[in-house]
């Protein structure tokens, strides 16, 4: 693997180009672990939580739930151990930001975890890292070894008497383990089938104990918030969506890669100013803004700020900021085949609408793609997607329905052309 640091950096990734930043000594030279020391020695757990709350940090795993608020849900006192689960299961197609945060910024993430552990008085963190991320897993292991050797983690963290252990578990290839409670099930050694809610993880989480689940990037922001304060953090991004995030741009762009930019940066700016615009002089057709679960936007609607409050108006969402760019050669029906195949393959299979709906959507779209579909089939697609929404144990069914709805909303014509011509009318499109 070559060095693949973001093309545009900010406070999260500015040192990712320096190899010694990945080691404890180099990390400490640049102020690493100071925020954790400050939190554990000068702040009460509640003060830490309030600081994170005040910053307005939204979870960066795709759901955007306010992190500080989530931390405040953890019960205080009692004799039940409290746990943290760090969601390093990044599997959203188009999203590859957590990977670099793990490969080059493991200490940064661990520092955020220790701060969170102090705030929530948790005794153990389980880092659930997707099984295919062998490199990032090794990076986490190295950082953990260093932290334990240096007395940062384990018994008597940073000499404060606070104890916190961190355990790394590798997943085994299941997107649904990125869902909060699917992750917990997998952590417990079972199939990663999401749980019914209530109860929520703060009441009944890992191994039945109160647990908070947060994403790798979410934890990575925490030390900066502690170091510079909530007001500083709110100086990045928008009123409702503060801070930076790492956008991943892929597909038909000249310079695909990672870009750490403030939330609220315009999508067209990211594509054309940072990612080099559409490659090969072609015209833009559509962009998926937030990872493949998010509804697509047509070329005419990318003048939108990348933050939930704005994207919602365009009937899509920020998700994990995985920006997938498609040019004019792309057949959206073929793209939909790839999309629906993914959701069919990754559905855990519990809920009727998800298990059968993901399969049916894929079958119909595949049939339309090869020219054996009808106009009625296109209506049926919309109907199935509608029936999958808002009715299941977890949001996977929604995530599977939204892309189809987005495609039909903006690119229905591609589907109708397949039906009319009995084959794909885009000769230059990728083949299945």
């Amino acid at each position, binding site marked *: 693997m070559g060095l693949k640091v973001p093309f545009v950096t900010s406070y999260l990734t500015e040192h990712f180009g320096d190899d010694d930043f990945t080691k404890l000594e180099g990390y400490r030279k640049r102020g690493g672990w100071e925020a954790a020391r400050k939190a554990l020695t000068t702040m009460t757990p509640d003060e830490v939580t309030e600081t994170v709350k005040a910053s307005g940090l939204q979870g960066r795993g795709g759901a955007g739930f306010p992190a500080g608020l989530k931390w405040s849900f953890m019960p205080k006192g009692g004799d039940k151990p409290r746990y943290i689960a760090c969601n390093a299961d990044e599997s959203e197609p188009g999203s590859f930001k957590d990977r670099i945060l793990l490969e080059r910024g493991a200490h940064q993430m661990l520092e955020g975890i220790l701060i969170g552990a102090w705030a929530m008085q948790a005794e153990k963190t389980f880092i659930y890292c997707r099984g*295919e991320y062998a490199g990032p897993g090794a990076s986490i292991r190295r950082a953990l070894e260093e932290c334990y050797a240096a007395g940062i983690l384990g018994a008597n963290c940073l000499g404060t008497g606070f104890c916190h252990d961190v355990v790394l578990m590798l997943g085994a290839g299941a997107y649904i383990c990125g869902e909060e409670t699917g992750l917990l099930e997998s952590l417990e050694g079972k199939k990663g089938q999401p749980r019914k809610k209530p109860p929520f993880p703060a009441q009944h989480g890992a191994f039945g104990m109160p647990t908070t689940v947060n994403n790798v990037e979410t934890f990575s922001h925490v030390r900066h918030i502690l170091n510079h304060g909530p007001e500083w953090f709110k100086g990045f991004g928008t009123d409702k969506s503060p801070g930076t995030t790492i956008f991943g741009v892929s597909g038909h762009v000249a310079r695909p890669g990672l870009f750490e930019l403030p939330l609220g940066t315009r999508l067209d700016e990211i594509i054309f100013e940072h990612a080099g615009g559409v490659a090969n002089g072609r015209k833009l057709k559509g962009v998926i803004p937030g990872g*493949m679960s998010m509804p697509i936007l047509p070329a005419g609607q990318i003048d939108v700020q990348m933050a939930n409050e704005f994207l919602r108006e365009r009937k899509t969402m920020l998700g994990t900021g995985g920006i997938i760019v498609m040019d004019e050669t792309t057949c959206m029906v073929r793209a939909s085949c790839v999309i629906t195949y993914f959701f069919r393959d990754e559905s855990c299979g519990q809920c009727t609408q998800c298990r059968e709906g993901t399969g049916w959507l894929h079958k119909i779209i595949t049939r339309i793609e090869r020219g054996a579909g009808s106009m009625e089939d296109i209506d049926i697609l919309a109907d199935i997607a509608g029936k999958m929404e808002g009715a299941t144990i977890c949001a996977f069914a929604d995530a599977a329905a939204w892309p189809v709805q987005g495609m039909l909303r903006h690119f229905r014509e591609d589907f109708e052309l397949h039906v009319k011509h009995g084959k794909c009318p885009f000769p230059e499109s990728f083949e299945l």
Partner: protein
Amino acid sequence: MVISEETRAKIEAEIAKYPQRRGGLLPALHLVQKEKGWISLETAQELAGIFGIKPVDVMEVVSFYSMFYDRPQGRHHVHVCTNLPCSLRGSRDLLRGLEAHLGVEAGETTLDGRITLGHEECLGACGYSPMMRVDETYHEDLDLASAREIVDGLK
């Protein structure tokens, strides 16, 4: 006994990290696969004994996760990502090229047992596609020539 003493010791070390024994099951399956390449029925029965669960419970888990195999595999796994961002940049053509080169279809193992070729969902390398995962290593920014060279180098 199918699972070696050494692997059993490693499994116990993993189990110790979790509040309940069963938390060590996924790590155990990874360890066993490292040793054996796949999870046989016998292996599943032994694991069931180690964890105090039923063999059917072990097979549920094995069958649920893409990275656990219930049948023998090639010595190397070569998985090309064929999800959307990679497809847009030609990964499916790359896979077809490798199929032709190796003489197997995705999902199959070469006759000499060297390579199991497959396609995989998003591996988190969308900006560096086409790409493939060879065992624990990512190979990115590929074209067919460089991909062929990599697989030819596998023993």
